[in-house]
């Protein structure tokens, strides 16, 4: 209302360029502003050109299809007065109120048709804007002809539209969707039936297989159980047997211990007897049972002297007291005792029975050592320019140098060597046979390609070797250089020495 007044006044004062703030929506709401229009009607004559323009505008088919409210607002925006707009509406071949009513009717019909014909569930959404336009159109019709707005009309329109929309939605839900669902289900059920029929048969087959395999597994498991039971029984029996054996062994050991104790006692008695019986028969090996500081038993070692050169006298004591089994050779007496038995005895605190009392203190702590008979010999790895050893064997022992002793002979037969060991063995053998000129000829060294270079590498040749000084040859052949060169050198020297020797 007030807006319309304002809108009417504005075209008077300002030009048609101003855009009217009044919109169609504002227009649709005025209640009784239509009667108040009368005092605001201007008395200006109609502008014919404007009216004609408006007629042309309204005659446009597109404009015809639009709501009246928009046409009116557009024209007002263009600066037309109320009279001019009405005049244009009158002039248009289809009168505006009728046009509007026809439009409303057509729109209504369209709206009514659309929900009934559309199959999509969005019809309810589509009904909303037509509802709004219908409401606008409905409200516009009374406004164009008689500017009266009836809420009852609007309510009726809303009700009708909502009912139609609801009805269409209900129809759709009840009829269309079930049909769709039924169709889809039909299609799906066909597939499922086929599959169901197939899967049933498969399932039964699989179930049968599983049952069979389970039965087999159960059978094997039961068999294994039986087997393990049998094995357990066997182990148990074997274990029992072993326990029996051990019990027997322990019995025998305890018997042996008893016997040994008896023997000890007997020997003790015999000891004392022997001590008093013999006068100075004791040898100079340390045997002082009565002066023992140890608190342990003194067992006489009846035969510990067979291997000593000066213990022969001790043996005279031996044969007499020999009733007990412990008086046998100490080697056999100590033999049965194993390492663990000794350890056990020691841990128990017992002393093993074959220990002698020995005095190994030096009789003369300042005893000077005897004069050496031989000067120290140079080592093979020392650089030797001259042989410091002239006579190797001047000892009291019988030594046969001219004939090869067995510890110098090397048998070429290789019984325990691995194949890779043959190479160094060959080197060993070649190095050891220098100038002995034996029947066995060492193999020719393969690396004597340039004798001059080999000669240049070599040390100055030492004095010719003494034939029976076989050890000296080794020193000559060795040097402090690398083993490769050493071996080559030795081989080269052997070759040369052989040539010299021959």
């Amino acid at each position: 209302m007030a807006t319309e007044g304002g809108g009417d006044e504005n075209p008077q004062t300002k030009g048609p360029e101003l855009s009217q703030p009044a919109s169609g929506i504002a227009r649709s709401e005025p209640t009784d502003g239509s009667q108040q229009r009368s005092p605001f009607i201007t008395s200006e004559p109609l502008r014919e050109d404007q009216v004609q323009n408006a007629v042309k505008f309204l005659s446009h088919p597109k404009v015809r299809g639009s709501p009246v409210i928009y046409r009116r607002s557009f024209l007002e925006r263009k600066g037309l007065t109320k009279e001019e707009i009405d005049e244009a509406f009158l002039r248009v071949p289809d009168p505006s109120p009728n046009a509007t009513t026809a439009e409303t009717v057509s729109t209504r019909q369209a709206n009514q048709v659309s929900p009934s014909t559309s199959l999509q569930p969005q019809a309810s959404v589509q009904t909303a804007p037509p509802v709004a336009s219908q409401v606008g159109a409905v409200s516009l019709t009374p406004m164009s002809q008689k500017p009266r707005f009836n809420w009852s009309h609007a309510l009726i329109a809303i009700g009708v539209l909502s009912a139609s929309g609801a009805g269409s939605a209900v129809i759709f839900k009840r009829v269309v969707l079930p049909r769709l669902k039924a169709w889809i289900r039909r299609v799906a059920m066909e597939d499922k039936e086929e599959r169901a029929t197939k899967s049933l048969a498969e399932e039964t087959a699989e179930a049968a297989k599983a049952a069979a395999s389970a039965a087999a597994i159960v059978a094997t498991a039961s068999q294994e159980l039986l087997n393990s039971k049998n094995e357990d029984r066997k182990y148990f029996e074997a274990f029992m047997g072993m326990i029996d054996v051990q019990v027997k062994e322990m019995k025998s050991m305890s018997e042996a211990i008893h016997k040994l104790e008896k023997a000890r006692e007997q020997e003790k008695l015999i000891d004392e007897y022997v001590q008093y019986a013999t006068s100075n028969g004791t040898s100079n090996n340390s045997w002082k049972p009565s002066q023992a500081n140890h608190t342990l038993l003194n067992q006489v070692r009846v035969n510990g002297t067979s291997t000593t050169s000066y213990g022969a006298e001790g043996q005279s004591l031996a044969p007499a007291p020999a009733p007990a089994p412990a008086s046998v050779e100490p080697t056999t007496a100590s033999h049965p005792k194993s390492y663990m038995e000794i350890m056990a005895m020691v841990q128990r605190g017992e002393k093993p029975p074959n220990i002698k009392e020995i005095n190994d203190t030096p009789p003369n702590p300042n005893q000077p050592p005897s004069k050496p008979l031989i000067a120290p010999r140079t080592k093979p790895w020392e650089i030797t320019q001259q042989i410091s050893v002239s006579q190797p064997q001047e000892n009291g022992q019988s030594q046969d140098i001219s004939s090869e002793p067995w510890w110098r002979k090397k048998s070429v037969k290789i019984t325990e060597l691995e194949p890779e060991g043959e190479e160094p063995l060959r080197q060993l053998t070649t190095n050891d046979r220098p100038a002995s000129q034996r029947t066995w000829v060492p193999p020719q060294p393969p690396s004597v390609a340039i004798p001059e270079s080999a000669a240049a590498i070599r040390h100055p040749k030492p004095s010719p070797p003494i034939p029976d000084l076989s050890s000296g040859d080794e020193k000559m052949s060795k040097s402090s250089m690398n083993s490769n060169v050493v071996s080559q050198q030795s081989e080269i020297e052997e070759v040369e020495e052989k040539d010299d020797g021959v």
Partner: protein
Amino acid sequence: MPVFKTPFNGYAVRFSPFYENRILVATAQNFGILGNGRLHILDLNPSGGISEVRSFDTADGVYDCAWSESHDSLAVAAVADGSLKLWDAALPPSANPIRSLKEHAREVHAVDWNPVRRDSFISASWDDSLKLWTLDRPTSIRTFREHAYCVYSAAWSPRHADVFASASGDCTARVWDVRDPSSSLVIPAHDHEILSCDWNKYDDCFLATSSVDKTVRVWDVRASRAPVATLAGHGYAVRRIKFSPHHENLLLSCSYDMTVCVWDYRAEDALLARYDHHTEFAVGVDMSVLVEGLLASTGWDELVYVWQHGTDPRAMP
């Protein structure tokens, strides 16, 4: 090859540096747990047997022995009662032993004579220390106490007069110089106890150690972070190793798996030979300095074998 039966369990064997057919054998009764000991001097007969020349009894087991490098008849023994005893085989039995050097608090496990100076020897003991001795002094000259556990072995360097190496149960091997107050080099050689060590006779920078972890490792003392070679092949702890006096790369080892093995540590396939003649722990080995390729071994089966490398120890000559 001849074999000698000792009355006690064998612990060590050494070839004499003077006589090529003489060996020294250290034995201990009852596997060395508790009992007497005996030191044997044996001769190899040209006819093929081994015979005993002398033997010396001790109150406690003898764990190691060494010949003197200056006197051809002098021998030193490492005794389980913590003493070192010297014997002179040229003197009558009434004069022997000529020295008893008792300073260690626990068993002496190893003794080695200096081959360069020839007048001194080093002893390694279970009281975590090593002691340096000479013949003319009744007491030790120096004590080297750095190890944290038993020292199992000591070996003089073949070239440097004052350098020796030690192997200990604290899993380290140490190189010492007698003139220095502390060790020159510490090599954490193994993850388990190290039972033996020996120097390469030809390349004085190489030291070999053997351990309870069944391996033998060769170390370059100039670069001791990683071993030059690790020799695996024994089934149990390797008890003793000896570098060959004649060949730079050859190494002899004996082990609790009752075998004696010969190795070439520079070869791709290091194990050259394995001798399984023993029926108990093989505890002592030696290679002769005078006779090339002559090996000797002893073990807890109370047997001493002497044979040429490449032959069967049990075959008769």
